[in-house]
């Protein structure tokens, strides 16, 4: 029997990720994207694989305060980074979630977590955005179902609710 061909050794590094306030230490291969690690290794399936090339925003997470595309980010570069995902935002009962439900900001729902994450990053930085600022912040998120008119309504309401506590 023919000997199994050897694959080139895969370089793997240990990284420490702080995801939604919890620390994870794991080995990641050099070519793994952050989206893969979150979705497949940590089971945080809210960050979706949609366009696969940084066009759609469905894989958005917040890293050290900034919204980033996790499909375009290598996990190996995220050592000691603070990462916030949709799961953390939902767990914290952020008013965006209820506002999104109220205004029907989802249809098939596959892109919705990416929108909520991007909107959360906006509100962290700009607690009382204008409608135009909301639209601009979300302009990089694609929704094939075309829920676009609803998002600004939801985000502005969430901002109001946040302010009023």
């Amino acid at each position, binding site marked *: 029997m023919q000997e199994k061909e050897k694959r080139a050794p895969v370089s793997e590094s240990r990284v420490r990720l702080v995801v939604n306030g919890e620390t994870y230490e794991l080995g990641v291969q050099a070519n793994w994207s952050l989206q893969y690690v979150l979705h497949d290794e940590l089971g945080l399936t809210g960050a979706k694989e949609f366009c696969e090339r940084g066009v759609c925003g469905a894989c958005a997470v917040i890293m050290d305060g900034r919204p980033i595309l996790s499909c375009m980010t290598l996990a190996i570069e995220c050592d000691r980074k603070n990462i916030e995902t949709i799961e953390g935002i939902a767990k914290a009962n952020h008013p965006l979630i209820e506002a999104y439900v109220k205004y029907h900001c989802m249809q098939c729902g596959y892109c919705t977590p990416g929108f909520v994450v991007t909107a959360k990053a906006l509100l962290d930085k700009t607690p009382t955005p204008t409608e135009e600022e909301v639209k601009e912040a979300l302009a990089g*998120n694609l929704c094939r179902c075309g829920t676009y008119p609803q998002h600004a309504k939801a985000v502005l309401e969430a901002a109001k609710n946040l302010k009023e506590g």
Partner: protein
Amino acid sequence: MAKNERQGETQGEYKKLQDEGKYRVGLDIPTITFNKIGKRGVRRLDGYEKASGKAIYTRDIKLPGMLYARILMSPYARAKIKRMDTSKAEILPGVRAVIRYDDPEVKDRMLNGSYFGPEWVCPELAGWGLKPIHPVLAEEAWYEGQPLGVVVAADSEEIANEALRLIEVEWEELPFVLDQEEALKPGAPILRPGTDTNIIVHPADKRGFIEKGDVEKGFREADKIIEFRAKRNAHLWAGAEPPSVLVRWRGENLEMWVHEQHPYHAKMLISEWLNLPMNKITVHTVYQGGSYGGRGNPANNSENGMNILAALLARRTGRPVKFLYSRNEYFYGESGDMEVTYFKVGTKNDGTITAVQLKNIFAVYMCTPSIDHFIDNTRIPNLKCEGLTVDVSKAPAWWCRCEQLPNCLCLTLVFDHVAAELGLDPTEVALKNDGCEGHDMAYLSKYKREHGFPDRDSLKECIEAGKKAIGWDGKWHKPGTKRLPNGRMHGIAFTWNHNWDDVRGTGSAAVMIENDGTVSIIGQHADIGVNPWTAYCQIVADELGMRYEDINIKPFNLDHGFALMSPDGSCNLPSNGYVVREAARKARAMLLELASQKFAGVKAEELDIKGDKIYVKAAPEKAKTIKEVVAKAMPMFNSCVYWTEPPVLAWAWYTQGLWGEAVTTGRPRLCRQAHFIEVEVDTETGEVVVTKVVNVNDVGKAVSPETVEGQMYGGTYMGLGRALTEEMVWDEQTGVLLNRNLLNYKYASMLDYGPIETIIKETGMGHGPYGSSGIGEATPTMIPALLGPAVYNAIGKWIEEYPITPDRVLKALGKA
């Protein structure tokens, strides 16, 4: 079988179903007071799961020991595998199975092409299925990007991909042709072995030919004959979640998680292919990231083929297998409106159309007789449509939200060309020809009165509302005459149609009163985002007299035997609304019967339900909670402490019938829709800027108004993308699709278009429950064609080819 014979047979079937109460004709008059039905602010059932990232999609599921499967894609437009060496892939660590095209298990095995066995699909499906001529693992590619040749299962997706890279293939490239008119010319390569033509469907075939009246007579009676041509280039679904299937064998039992619109059909087909009894197959359907028809072509490798190959790999390896397509591989088809149409229209000077003749040349498979909407909606007496379908070196065209695109393109262009040629207001031309199957509005009024419908003029109401919203009377102008202060040309346009669909679909479901007094709707249903479940729960709540919050649906599993009509054809609500309502009514009767035993000396008909209580109508203070009443009504209980009672569970099956003309269905189209658009055209750059859209849809009755609006504006975004930017572009030299990604296949983003105003009309004239009609496909199908007349109104030139890209605008202006 001749069409008339079939019609007669179909009429008999309708009559029988009508007699059995499983098919209804006439207004559906509500028997209940609406509490949630039609109300705004009802909490969306899937909302929290989707907003919080907790909704699970097929691609999210992982099973212990799961392998990942990937398939080879053809790099050539047309090529044959001469030799394939898989040895390096087979010995790659982590590779668990390789199945080649010449493997005895798949060699010479065809995909089963249709829902109806190894034949062409039944004529009622208008040729939307494929002949089972394609192997499950082909040796020859007939389009670039075709899945074929070899499939690999490995420990990870990466290893599977690496294995594919290690496979050496020697290809024999063959001549190809991309354009359907080119494919008809002498000397064009013949793509299908064993034939001498690229024609798949010929007008002589009954699917390709429809004639009503006598068009030659109609042309003789006309004051004016208008002839023109239009071409629609390829676009496609581009749904959010790339395709996948997950399968696992439990001994002889096969378990599948599918991302498909028609899971029941998936079960039928895989059973047939594997010769596996249907009762050994379990199908799960979790949330689905969009479909728009793209996850619904049973004859394509990307549907039935991937299910079969995943099952074979899983059986070989004894492990669960998830078969994945990537984003670029999701470009495995086109919309079924890849067409060239030659129009000839006869009209009187006042806008009365006397004849319409269409000659369609479709590419790859779909053949929609695009005269249907003239039959359904107009009094035009003479209609003729010849449809030719031609093979080209492209993936099969298929439903794409929706198959009515050719109809809408043709209806819009005919009406707007007539208005333009005669210098008439297009809204007046529409009203002058509105009708049904050659009859005028008096005929429809008579029908409405005889069948209990309110006699309202739906089109007139839609037009009035839309004109007001867009300011039509002050804005409509002669073509090419209004330059704006910003230098752009202003354009405004209108189109119309019937509001489909309320006449087809079949489904089943059960309503169960759980032991705690809450209610479950049991029936598999593939979610593609149109929020039907909220509507079903609203209906069940109101029919039972219970609280909406106490109703839930169990849609993720096919095993319990009930399956609601698939999310197709805009007929979720018109078919399934009846299903869940009937099941709720039966369950209510059972519940009251059981309750009457708990109230001494009270009959079931003397009881009523409100919220979580059952009470005596004559003495409302005499009440019991539903929970008390069903305390012992349970499907199982492991105890001898007390006697149990049978569960309160009732199921129903209902059919809205086949899609067809009123003469067979008994249901003429009564609800209409009207759409208005305003654009600005930059004559220097060719850019078309959409500044305002108004959608007016007469949905009969809006059970969930926010959901209806979501389909209207959401579909409009899709429609605008199709009209202006969405086009699949092939390299003419190589036949390679150049934009297999969402960077270069562009659809709408949040900032691309001006505001969309949605106006719901509720005339109560739908054939669905409570007088409802459909909404899911209306705007994405109607809006694309509307940009043609809008740009014409702006620049005074027709753009013959869609989408209307800047280069085509400049060409029409003589600048390119």
